[in-house]
Each structure stands twice: as C-alpha cells, then as structure tokens.
C-alpha cells in the first residue's frame, strides 16, 4: 500500500496500468488528447505488482487498473474519469499539469 501511495504522490498525474490492458491504453490516449503526460506504472511489469494490485483493490479500484491519481488523490477508474470529463470537472483538475504545446 505504501508503494502505491508514495508513487501516487510522486507526480501530479499518476496512472497505474497493465501493459496488456486496452482500457488503460484508452485512458492514456485521453490524457494525451488533453495535453497531459501522466506518470505511468505498469504493475504487471513491477516485481511488487501483486501487492500493488491488492492495494488498489482495497482503495476501491475493482479493475484494478486503470487507476488514476491527480495531485496525489485517487480520482478512480475509467468510469470516474469519463464522468468527470463529461461534466467538465476533469480539465480544471488537470490544468496545472497540462503541457503547453
């Protein structure tokens, strides 16, 4: 759990993913479109991946991936990110972390 929370606070936008997960890929594409480069952790390539998976599940991410943290706080999985985006709430949260290009 500590690894997950410490990694989650390392950067403004953090995404826990699996390299084989296509939904995670979709979320990465969305962030790209929003000019944000999240710090991506592929937990299937991490030696402590299994513990990280359990930790994410305990935090409420059933996937357990994709799991998105903004400003160190858990936003949720694909559902939450999509709802937030359509309601207009995602962009304000991402504004400090958007690249200028």
């Amino acid at each position, binding site marked *: 759990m500590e690894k997950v929370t410490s990694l989650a606070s390392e950067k403004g936008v953090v995404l826990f993913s699996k390299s*084989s*997960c*296509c*939904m995670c*890929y*979709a*979320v990465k*594409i*969305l962030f790209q*479109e*929003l000019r944000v480069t999240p710090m991506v952790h592929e937990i299937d390539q991490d030696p402590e991946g299994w513990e990280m998976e359990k930790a994410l599940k305990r935090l409420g991410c059933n996937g357990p991936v994709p799991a998105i943290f903004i400003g160190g706080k858990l936003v949720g999985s*694909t*559902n939450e990110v*999509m*709802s937030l*985006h*359509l*309601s*207009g709430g*995602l*962009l304000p949260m991402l504004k400090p972390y958007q690249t200028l290009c």
Partner: protein
Amino acid sequence: MNSPTPQFVPSRLGIYEPIHQIGIWGENFKSNGNPNTSTSVIVEVDNKLENESETTSHEMLTASNNYKQEASKPIDKIQRRLAQNREAARKSRLRKKAYVQQLENSRLKLIQLEQELQRARQQGLYMGGVLEGSHIGFSGTVNSGIAAFEMEYGRWVDVQHRQICELRTALNAHISDIELRILVESGIGHYFELFRMKSTVAKADVFYVISGVWKTSAERFFSWIGGFRPSELLKVLVPQLDPLTEQQILEVCNLKQSCQQAEDALSQGMEKLQETVSSTVAGGPVDEVSYIPQVATAMEKLEALVSFVNQADHLRQETLQQMSRILTTRQAARGLLALGEYFHRLRALSTLWATRPPEPSLP
C-alpha cells in the same frame, strides 16, 4: 545349468532383464543328440567369451562369465529387444498424441457449429425484427440471456413509442413544467433501463451486443461499440433546442468536445484490442495441427470487450445526464422527443428498405 528358469542380467539401463537364452541354449543341448556337436558349441562359446571386446559393460561381462553357455549373442538380443520396446513405446506415444489432438479439434469444431447454429437462429430473429415492434423471442435459442433480452427489448421499443407520443401531446398542450418534468425523468430513466439490459446481456454474449443484430438495419449502420455515438446524439438534439442561452451554448459546446475526446479514446482502445486479439490468433506456427493455445489466449483477451461495451453505454448515459442538467425542462422534453423520433424514423427507414420493390430487370 540347463534349467530353463529365467535368470536376470543387469542391462546397460540398469533394468534387470530375464535371460531366456539359457532355456534356448538348454534346448540346443537337448535337441542336439550329438555330444560332439554340443561340445564344440560350448567350445565355440567359450572362445567367443574370451574374445569378448571391452565394449560390453562390466556387469554384462561378469554375468556372462557366470553363465558360460551365454555368449555375446543373447546380450545383443537383449539390446535389440530393448530398442524395439523403446521404438514401440515411442510410436504408441505418438499415436496417443495424434488421437488427443484429433479429439481437441473435434471439440472446437463442435463449438464452432453450435455458434453458427445460434447465429443462424438470430438471423431468423432479425428477419422478424424488421417489422417494427415485432421483436419475438425465440424459445429455442441456445442462450437464454439473449432470448430474455429480445423480449425485453421488444417491450422497451413499444414503451419508447408510447412515451414519444405522450411528449408530443404534452408539449403541444402546454402542460405545466412540473408535469413535464415527470415525463422527462421517465424518458431519461427509460434509456438508463436499456443500458442496464444491455449490460446484463453483454455478460451472456458480448458479441451479440456489439453486432447490433438486435437493432434494425438502419440503426446498425450508425452503430458504435454496440449503440449510438454520444456525439451523434448531440448533433441530432441541438438543432431542435433553439433558442439556447449563451451559457447553454458554451456548456453544450464543451460537452460536445469532451464527448468527442472520450469517444476517440475508446475507439483507439478498441482498435488496440482488435490488434491484440488478431496477433494472438495469428501467432504460432501454421503447420501445427493444434491451434488451441492461440485460441485459448485470445479468449482471455476478449474479456476486455465487455468493459468497452459497458464504458460506451456509460458515455451515452453521462451525455444524456449532462444534457438534462444543462437544459430547461421544456428544452429537455423537446430534446427527448427529437431523439425518440429520430430512432423511430430510422426504424421506419429499415422497414421501408427491407420491403422496397425489387429492381426491375433490364429488357
């Protein structure tokens, strides 16, 4: 010494093989009435033993020395027999492997045939679905989840039709906003009900939902991950909603953009899934009879399709919810009417297309 009881000699494999050669040799002695011949055989055998090369293993030599009548010949026979046994065992294993592969292939073929049968039945269902409102459930369907959905969807379309008529009447009659709000809520709730139904049947057969075979042909033409595109929905609604305030125009514009972005992300995710499944199925040598590992792995990857279908419906739901928030009650009622009427016309188009007169043949 002449007794035919089997003795054991350690072979090179460490397996103790019975020597029946003693019996053979014993018989030779018996059959040869001529003592001179027997003696010469023994002499020959003894000579052979003395000329035994070092290639024979130490145990063999020791054992052979114990049984003077046996020369190198029985040891060769043992080795030959062992080799024959090994060969026979190997052939048996190969035959068994081939048989098992045949069984597995037959099993897969059976599954394929069952699926084709189900598809054919669904095609039969679709033909019934061309006539609007007559979505009849097929009691013989292999998948009961699909049969249940077919029936429920038929009812859903009927209720939808009734709701549209009620909205039209209500808007023309200029009823109060409170009463109109009730109609709007039930209209939106009705769409949410469809998403719930789709989620259930997607668990039973996700390909069924994605194929859109439960919809009419014109509706299917516009299908995106098992339903309508949220951005398409907005394109249909917005022109019907004039006049919109400046604030509303801005919010609708933002919703259009975020909708489009979310759709793009999901579309690309779907493409990635297609690539993944395709490369898994195509992988491995093609000259091998068995393709089970590839197909089995592909099965796992296809599980992701269910989450894409669910997420697409989630987008549709959120779009409707946001529009309901942005618009006034009256605008929302007009929007629902426009949307319902749009799908009603698409279904009519499907029916018309299916029943159009055949092309006149050229003279």
